[in-house]
């Protein structure tokens, strides 16, 4: 029976080519617009570390007090989104989480070993040894450094594969010496390909998305001792009292990011209690104002998904809705025009159910064809989106199997939904009346 309905649907669709084409085009464009924007949205709103995001937390401490907070144009914002140097070092010293790391952003220059080649800039972070197991940094060669290296301010470095290629020409470079900002470091690890998006451990400075990958990771205490200054944001409620990098470290300016791994909700609660105690001790002048957000809540709080991406998705979904209303209208007209045919079929013994099947198959076929066109247009859209949207975001949008399947499914289901009411009307046709009127 299915084959027969397919045949009927094909005949009917062929009978009015312009209209069929119009419906397919409508579905195709509607689906493609929403799937293209969806692919961008999916890329920027995804979980960058799904196997672990529920265990990672970002602590916030109000280091500025209620007088500054009162001037905050957005009181809902809560404490500042980074820590002072003093707070970060204090939290590290207490070491209350399972794994934790304070960090700040670097933009050091690297001097290639080969004579005559110009130095180049790279991006990186100063971190503690626990950073590596905490965010699961993949290693191609070697590993991170040890807690003892943190303590002793060892001159060690973890570098990316890209920096490894550029400086050493690739290969296992563990043990080799690399010149970073004029100082020599011993390479202890070469990272595998690692470019998490969003850059979840430091969204404050990266804004979430970066086309540049993490070039070097250096020990926090070592870079502080070497006066390697912060390349990320520095926010001050008042100008530092002393000048220079040391002045910044002693000031109430916030410039250090912090992440902590807590394995259970109970651990998180304990850490939150500890954080309050810590804040009470550090800032006796005001009631402790702290937050401990899980990673996904933190990404949401920092508005990592650009509002434009969300607006585009909503507008494109609106377009899809209009396309569906349009298709529903056209299918309705098309189906009802065949009232007499339906009447004959019903009189010859076809049940309502069979009429339903027949017309839904016809709608489904329009959906399938629309989906195929939509797929092609989505592919074009994803290629073209790089031209329209900022590269750091557009590059993340990809046409993969799941998007492929979703596009087809959305097209077919949506068209069948649009065809539901017209089919209902078609099935309700009174055979006797139709036969009589002719």
């Amino acid at each position, binding site marked *: 029976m299915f084959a027969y309905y397919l045949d009927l649907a094909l005949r009917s669709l062929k009978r009015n080519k312009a209209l069929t084409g119009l419906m397919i085009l409508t579905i195709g464009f509607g689906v493609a617009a929403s799937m293209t924007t969806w692919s961008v949205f999916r890329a920027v709103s995804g979980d960058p570390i799904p196997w672990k995001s529920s265990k990672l937390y970002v602590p916030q401490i109000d280091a500025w007090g209620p007088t500054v907070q009162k001037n905050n144009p957005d009181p809902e914002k809560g404490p500042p989104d980074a820590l002072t140097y003093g707070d970060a070092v204090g939290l590290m010293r207490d070491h209350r989480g399972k794994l934790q790391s304070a960090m700040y952003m670097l933009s050091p220059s690297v001097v290639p070993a080969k004579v005559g080649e*110009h*130095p180049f800039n790279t991006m990186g972070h100063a971190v503690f040894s626990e950073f590596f197991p905490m965010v699961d940094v993949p290693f191609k060669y070697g590993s991170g450094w040890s807690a003892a290296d943190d303590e002793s301010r060892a001159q060690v470095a973890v570098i990316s594969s890209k920096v490894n290629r550029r400086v050493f020409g690739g290969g296992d470079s563990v043990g080799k010496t690399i010149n970073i900002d004029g100082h020599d470091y011993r390479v202890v690890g070469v990272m595998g390909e690692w470019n998490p998006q969003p850059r979840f451990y430091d969204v404050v400075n990266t804004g979430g998305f970066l086309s540049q990958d993490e070039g070097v990771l250096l020990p926090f205490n070592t870079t502080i001792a070497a006066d390697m200054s912060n390349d990320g944001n520095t926010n001050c409620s008042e100008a530092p009292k002393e000048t*220079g990098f040391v002045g*910044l470290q002693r000031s109430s300016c916030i410039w250090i990011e912090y992440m902590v791994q807590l394995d259970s909700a109970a651990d998180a609660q304990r850490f939150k209690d500890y954080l309050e105690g810590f804040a009470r001790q550090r800032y006796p002048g005001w009631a402790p104002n702290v937050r401990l957000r899980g990673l996904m809540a933190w990404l949401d709080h920092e508005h990592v998904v650009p509002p434009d991406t969300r607006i585009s998705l909503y507008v494109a979904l*609106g377009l899809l809705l209009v396309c569906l209303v349009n298709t529903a209208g056209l299918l309705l007209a098309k189906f009802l025009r065949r009232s007499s045919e339906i009447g004959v079929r019903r009189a010859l013994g076809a049940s309502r159910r069979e009429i339903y099947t027949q017309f839904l198959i016809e709608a489904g076929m329009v959906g399938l064809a629309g989906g195929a066109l939509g797929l092609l247009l989505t592919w074009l859209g994803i290629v073209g989106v790089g031209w329209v949207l*900022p590269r750091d975001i557009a590059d993340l949008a990809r046409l993969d199997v799941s998007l492929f399947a979703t596009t087809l499914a959305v097209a077919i289901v949506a068209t069948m939904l649009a065809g539901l009411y017209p089919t209902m009307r078609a099935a309700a046709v009174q055979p006797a009346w139709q036969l009589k009127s002719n």
Partner: protein
Amino acid sequence: MTLHPILAALKKHKAGVTLITLQIALTLAIVCNAVFIIGQRVDRINRPSGIDENNLFLVTQSWVGAPTGDDEGSIDKLDSMQQADVATLRNLPDVESAIAVNTLPLVNSTWSTGISLKPDQQRSTAQAALYFGTEQMVPTLGLKLVAGRNFTSAEIGHMGFRGHNKPPVIIVTKALGDKLFPKGDALGKTVYIDRNPTTIVGIVERMQVPSVNSWANSWFWNSVLIPTRLDAGFSRYAVRAKPGRLDAAMREAPKALYASNPMRVIETGAKFEDKSVHSFAEIRRYAYRADRGMAVLMGVICLILLCVTGAGIVGLTSFWVGQRRKQIGIRRALGATQVDILRYFQTENLMIAGVGVVLGAILAVGLNLWLMKQFQMDRMSITYVLVGVVVLLVLGQGAVFAPARRASKVSPVEATRSV
């Protein structure tokens, strides 16, 4: 012609009429808001930066193993390295002038601070971005001085990147001057930056802040020129090439800088992010890339929407015409002219579209209110809705014309034929 027969006919197609009305309403709501978004982005992109952008380019570089810039000696060393670079650039044959700056409009690297009218004010009067440089800043950037004077070379100091900023005099933009002193008499007045007093000696017509992000929207024109060279391990040079020599100057600049001191980084990749010599045109394009992208995307969606709705009206009306051939024939046989038939379908469309646009106008305003709440968007001017209404009514009439004309061509003989 009375509307009665049209209404009676429409009643027979309730579902179809409802769907097309709904489609017109949704189209209007979305198109109005999308065009409003486009308008806002275009306004943003077209804001003048206040500087003369022609023949201007920016070199960003950092020295490898530079002094820290924390003590007096190393600050002086950095300062002389910076001045040597400026001299190198000025000596290039294709360069008209060159200055060291901490940032430029649209570069998105901002040093901002609060400006107060009293030394111990709790909350500053205005937020502003600081541009550090010398008396060459005003002429090289092509800023228009509308009151007061430029800095003199005697007023220029220099300080480390994290030093204490205590300029004796400043130049402000007119927007900032008016914000601080609404009576427009900012010239000569004393204001406070980080509790240090300073005197406004000049006012420039306009200069954007470096950030194009939304956090700077409310103080977008508030810029301050500080007569201080800022010394750090990295530096930026704004260079004005001789007319028509921009490309040549941009090629020469890194070569000359490397020749004078090879221990530095000047990136020369292909992508904007991977290079550190940019023409101002590139900087402008890059700064507004998201806004341009959003405008293009909204434009494409509007175009698809209008096409779909137009085609939908054509399709549906064609069907109705096909269905009513016999009735049209009868009307024609009873004396209706071709124009009568044409008018009939046009009026019918006008009624459907009329209800649709009224609904759509309400939806459009609702959608705008929702976007305002969700995304801090501005209130849409009613003009957008009115123009949208006209556009959709015209679209409807245009779309209905072909099928209606076909209907008017139906011969009266049809009345005598059975279907």
